């Protein structure tokens, strides 16, 4: 057993278990409490997070916050039933209490013994560092002040600048009755700039940001304060020029990178295992069928180095992988956690995620991307007589049963006679996932991932995710502007 050579596991053991007087053998006792009569699987999820945020307004860092949270979540499965309880204490008593409560989901049946640990060494997708320790307080404040200075210097219309630097050091350890023992050290940092620009009594916002699973020092070395400040100002100035957006169905060209939120909403949620097991997704039972245009290949890839949506292991301890969801337009697979994979006779795909120890796992996305095609992005725009070119988005939502989804542009332009012309006000785009994906007619060769800003919400739980895509043309999509 090579578990003792696993640096993440050693760190997790000393940060999560040792303070409460526990060691790895105490986890077997904990599992024993949870594996009551009729329970066929149980897992213990230990987590501690140290979060920090620094916020600049009016040129000063006026507010800084620090949060420490931690605890253990105990889940039991009995057939399709789930029992769940958690405690913010990590101790033998807490394990006994939560274990017995979770075991109550089944009242009778056989007692199954937990399997002995068969530890695997997952490939690490990011460094196991404390990202908050990488920069001094003075350096953090200096970054924020740089963003303020750069934004205000960029244009006299800039009247308000706010910037934030946040980071999270998360340590998790999973022990499950199927023999899983795995740990993960998950750094996550982010820098954001938001500006208000005012001209002739008109006010508009622009914002930019990003980050990933690495140290705050890298944010400084990447010069994000300056880059995001300039980008936020550029966007606000574009929006000051924006005219009312058109309304109705028309061709839409989506820029590369963050507009991949299209895939997250139109395809991603509908391919999560739970919805398909229950038959409530518009994609249920359609594996092997055409659900998108030829040339469309969509993957969910948790393995991308240092990305915001990446994980070395998921929250059930399964190593993440690159899962092909749609290949050349044909539906290939779903994203699974252990429960839904087992009930559907499939394998877990490394997509089990939870917001924290106080939330139960569900199948969730990691980084969802469309692979590059052959088309030149300029040719894609040139092919449109009248339509919309949308390059930045606020957020989206989907009804996985009917397949209807929306996503709201925060920076968009008219395309007239093959040329990008006037900026238009943000408008919501609406379509039906399986239909819209079959109207993708051109795919650029310029695949790009987003800058690291996504948060996905499902049943009240938020998790960091990534998206990406090349420039795309959708032949017809409903644009929710105000001009007929």
């Amino acid at each position, binding site marked *: 057993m090579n578990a003792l050579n696993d640096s993440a596991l050693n760190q997790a053991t000393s940060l999560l278990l040792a303070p409460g007087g526990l060691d790895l053998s105490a986890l077997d006792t904990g599992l024993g409490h949870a594996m009551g009569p009729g329970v066929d699987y149980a897992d213990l999820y230990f987590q501690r997070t140290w979060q920090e945020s620094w916020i600049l307004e009016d040129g000063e860092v*006026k507010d800084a*916050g620090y949060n420490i949270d931690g605890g253990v979540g105990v889940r039991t499965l009995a057939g399709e039933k789930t*029992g769940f309880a958690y405690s913010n204490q990590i101790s033998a008593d807490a394990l006994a209490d939560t274990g017995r409560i979770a075991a109550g989901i089944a009242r009778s049946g056989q007692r199954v013994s937990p399997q002995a640990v068969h530890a695997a060494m997952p490939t690490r997708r990011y460094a196991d560092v404390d990202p908050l320790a990488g920069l001094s307080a003075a350096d953090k404040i200096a970054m924020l002040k740089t963003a303020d200075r750069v934004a205000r210097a960029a244009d006299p219309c800039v009247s308000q600048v706010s910037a934030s630097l946040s980071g999270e050091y998360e340590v998790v350890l999973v022990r499950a009755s199927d023999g899983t023992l795995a740990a993960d050290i998950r750094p996550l940092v982010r820098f954001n700039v938001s500006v208000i620009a005012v001209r002739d009594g008109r006010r508009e916002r622009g914002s930019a940001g990003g980050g990933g699973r690495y140290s705050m020092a890298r944010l400084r070395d990447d010069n994000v304060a300056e880059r995001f400040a300039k980008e936020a100002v550029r966007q606000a100035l574009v929006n000051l020029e924006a005219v009312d957006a058109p*309304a109705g169905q028309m061709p839409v060209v989506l820029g590369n990178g963050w507009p991949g939120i299209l895939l997250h909403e139109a395809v991603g949620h509908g391919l999560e295992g739970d919805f398909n097991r229950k038959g*409530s997704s518009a994609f249920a039972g359609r594996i092997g069928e055409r659900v998108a245009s030829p040339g469309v290949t969509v993957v969910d890839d948790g393995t991308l180095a240092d990305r915001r949506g990446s994980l070395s292991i998921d929250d059930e301890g399964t190593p993440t992988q690159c899962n092909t969801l749609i290949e050349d337009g044909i539906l290939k697979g779903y994203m699974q956690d252990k429960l839904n994979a087992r009930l559907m006779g499939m394998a877990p795909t490394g997509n089990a995620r939870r917001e924290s120890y106080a939330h139960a796992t569900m199948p969730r996305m990691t980084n969802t991307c469309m692979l590059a095609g052959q088309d030149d992005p300029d040719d894609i725009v040139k092919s449109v007589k009248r339509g919309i070119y949308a390059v930045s988005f606020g957020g989206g939502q989907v009804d996985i049963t009917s397949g209807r989804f929306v996503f709201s542009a925060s920076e968009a332009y008219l395309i007239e006679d093959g040329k990008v012309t006037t900026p238009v006000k*943000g408008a919501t785009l609406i379509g039906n996932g399986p239909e819209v994906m079959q109207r993708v007619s051109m795919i650029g060769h310029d695949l790009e991932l987003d800058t690291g800003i996504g948060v996905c919400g499902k049943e009240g739980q938020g998790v960091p995710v990534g998206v990406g895509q090349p420039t795309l043309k959708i032949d017809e999509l409903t644009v929710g*502007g105000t001009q007929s």
Partner: protein
Amino acid sequence: MSQAFDAVEQQARLEARVAQALEWAKQLGADACEVGASVDQGIGVSVRLGDVESVELSRDQGIAVTVYVGQRKGSVSTSDDSDESLRAAVEKAVAIAGYTGEDPASGLADAALMATDLPDLGVHHPWPLSTDDAIELALACEAAGRNVEGITNSDGASLSSGEGVRVYGNSHGFLGSQRGSRHSLSCMLIAGHGAEMQRDYDYTSVRDPAAMLAPETVGRNAADKTLARLGASSPATGRMPVLFAPELASGLVGNFLNAIAGGALYREASFLCDRLGESVFPEWFTLREKPREYGAMASTAFDNDGVATRDNVFIDRGRLASYMLSAYSARRLGMSTTGNAGGARNLRIEAPLMSREALLARMERGVLVTELMGQGVNGVTGDYSRGAAGFWVENGKIQHPVEEFTIAGNLRDMFANLEGVGSDTDTRGSVHTGSWLIGDMMVAGE
């Protein structure tokens, strides 16, 4: 599957923790300090297709310490309020205040504004509900819905029941606490097959379990709403009136409140900056806040600054009569707090109310919107563009379901063009309102 929760005991414990943190902050050199703490415990069960799907016991607690050293501020929060952790949190907060910049507006609210009378507002109604009873209620709810002809599948029914305590104290000597409860039951059903599938849901959410809708009613409502969506088409593109169902009209009130919140105003991030005293709604429309209404969903005697809550009038006969301010945002704006640290509580509308039928007749031709999707509201400009689903209305009558369209406008125009408020008041949330008829919006569909 249960765990004892004694709210009175928890209240006493949290009050002691808050007092302890305040004492340590003083010892460690803070000039002022405020501490908020809460603990909530509950049970949640979900059932699907007549069987238990999950049983979850939750217990969430947290304590947040904010210290002021001169005009500098530091904040720390933690879920662990043990002596060791809490003292470390206070130390860390003081250390952070050594790095942050001077903020002339920072600090506690004025001592004279602290709430002094803390009446029982009737919001704590524990429900000694066993897991088995909770499961029975959820099963009855789902079964009633699934028994309606045409329902083909289910996303299940869920019941959650919980209670908790919230304590806030500061170095003025204010210490306030409040116990509360929340119980809800929801059901989501599916009708149709394949590409024709539709889903919808209904719920009941109350402070006092005695006020809960019958499980069977929730299930049947969910079924009726789901079936009504079958066969939806996309409406034609054009300008027309839009009738917002009550649960969505309360969202428009929410959009308005976001625009008069102090934080948005001092950041110049609101389309209602500098509009105080001006006409924003029709003159027949008044919007009041009743934060001390007995038994109401959001009632509290003190806000998140410890300031006594009071009745506010935000819209007085159409005019923007007051912003919604905390002590901090008020100082930033050179105004006085309105007791709204933490938001607005219990919004009530005064207007001549019309029946749903009368509103439809008045609309003549347009869409009744029963679902909105996405985040297409720009608080800076008031621009509004959201995905929608609902019903096509012609000759003042509902004709057929519609979906996959957007409605767009600007909140300034939408508020000014409010043509009627329905008597079909939804009382489940903090905002009580009926349907809103908005005169003229852009609908984009086919």
